[in-house]
């Protein structure tokens, strides 16, 4: 079975700064993988690299066996990589339904079919009652779901969720997490990026990778990884590491 996503010693530099340092990972279809790490660890950069908004300086990225290291964002999307953005980007003068239709249009030219496909997705995300409202002015929880809905409408094989629950209340976050857990039902593998909300990570992640200053410092099951000293040190600083000894 070809892994759905492989990063092979990927490095990304901005001027003198190495934002991502020789990161490698493998992911199989149907998995829910979370990349965690403190602010500035490089999570969003990794997402930008996978989705084609940035290209690696070294290393390769393979999606379903195909090298996508130098691909443009729209090509990556067409191949089956969907994403949400850390700062939500609804298209403000379109309705919720129209926003999602944009994703659905990848597979049909007909507005009517796009509408039907979008309705199903909005139903899954429990947003049908919001279909006719303008996307601007919606509360954050709805906007986060809209991001997912729009990406899901492109029928991706891999979806990148960057800080998808940040800014939500705990109950909103858990509700959304429950939906994210079900994404593999749509044939989608999930990579999530999270800085804090560990409850969510513990509940739904199959595997966790920890980044710190651009390098991978730990990988494994959620419960194991969070106990590791190097992870605690990365988040809380060296003093706390001693506490765990």
């Amino acid at each position: 079975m070809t892994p759905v996503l492989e990063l092979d010693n990927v490095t990304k530099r901005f001027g003198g700064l190495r934002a991502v340092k020789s990161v490698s990972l493998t992911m199989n279809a149907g998995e829910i993988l979370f990349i965690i790490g403190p602010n500035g660890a490089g999570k969003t950069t990794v997402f930008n690299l996978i989705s084609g908004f940035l290209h690696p300086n070294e290393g390769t990225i393979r999606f379903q066996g195909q090298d996508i290291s130098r691909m443009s964002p729209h090509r990556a999307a067409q191949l089956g990589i969907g994403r949400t953005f850390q700062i939500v980007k609804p298209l403000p003068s379109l309705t919720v339904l129209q926003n999602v239709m944009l994703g659905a249009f990848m597979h049909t030219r007909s507005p009517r079919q796009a509408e039907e496909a979008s309705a199903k997705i909005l139903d899954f995300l429990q947003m049908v009652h919001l279909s006719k409202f303008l996307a601007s002015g919606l509360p954050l929880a709805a906007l986060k779901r809209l991001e997912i809905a729009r990406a899901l409408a492109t029928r991706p094989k891999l979806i990148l969720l960057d800080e998808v629950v940040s800014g939500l209340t705990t109950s909103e976050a858990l509700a959304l997490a429950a939906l994210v857990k079900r994404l593999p039902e749509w044939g989608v593998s999930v990579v999530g990026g999270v800085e804090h909300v560990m409850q969510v990570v513990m509940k739904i992640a199959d595997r966790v990778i920890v980044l710190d200053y651009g390098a991978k410092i730990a990988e494994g099951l959620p419960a194991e990884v969070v106990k590791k000293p190097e992870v605690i040190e990365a988040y809380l600083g060296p003093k706390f590491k001693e506490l765990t000894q």
Partner: protein
Amino acid sequence: MSLLKSWKFWALVAATLVWARMPWFVQNNYQLQVLFRITLFAALGLAWNLVGGYAGQLSLGHVAFFGIGAYGLALFHQIPLPLWLSLILAATVATLVAGLIGLIAFRLRGPYFTLATIAFGEVLRLTAANLDVTGGAIGLTVPSLFHGRTFWRQFYLASVALTVIAFIVNYWVSRSRFGYYLLAIREDEDTASAVGINTARSKLWSLLLSAFLTALAGALYGSAFQFIIPDSALTLEISVQIAIITMLGGAGTLLGPIVGAALLLSAQEVFKNQFRESHLLIYGVLIVVVVLFLPEGVVGGLERLFSRKPRAPGSSKPQPALGGAAQ
């Protein structure tokens, strides 16, 4: 959706027929000329709307296509080639040039794009003014597409026909996937890319369509006045005028460009009798007023007033993303 049952469709048809009959109500050729210019600018506005309204790319270089249409008609006919073939070739050349401009300019965003379009327009004007084959600063005579005593009436009807075509193109775009893609590009190009839209290609297509129509209008204009000079027909002023008409009426709407053309050019006529040369001042004031108080234009503002798209309860008032209304 059955078009034939829609009352709006029949209202538009009726309005078009009335508009086409205008020459018969008008006393003299000068007034007919004014109507001709209003209708032609409505067509120009509709053509620009594809790029500036739907795709949200503020092009201030459209006069380039306008000029290529007119000069092309004259030059191709000089070869000599038949009139109507020359017309099609001129529009085709304009479209090819648009392709070139698009390849360069669309890699730029925001004000850089606008600057590039201005630069292209000016390069064209200065080149036409400096080359002998284009008649230099003195200009060229443009062959007349129509003849006879009623030739102004024929030109007028041709302009109406062009406006109808431009309107139909706008309508088709607004209802199609292509139109959605352009709106997405207007609001946020990164998001558009993330859902698989090839933004460069979509923008290019909107420019090609727009350029073709604009060139036809330019050829018609040059042919009606039988003369074309760089300093009056290839100026940045015309590009700005086209953009203002559409913005004033409502960029991104179907009727906006038409309303804008009617309003602006009528106002110009009225003021021409009061002040000799101050039409630029009017434009300037209108632009400032529209930007400050009515960024979506007349039609856009009206649409929002009677909008069928409510905002979610408990939400804050949205800021206009671009100042142009969507469908």
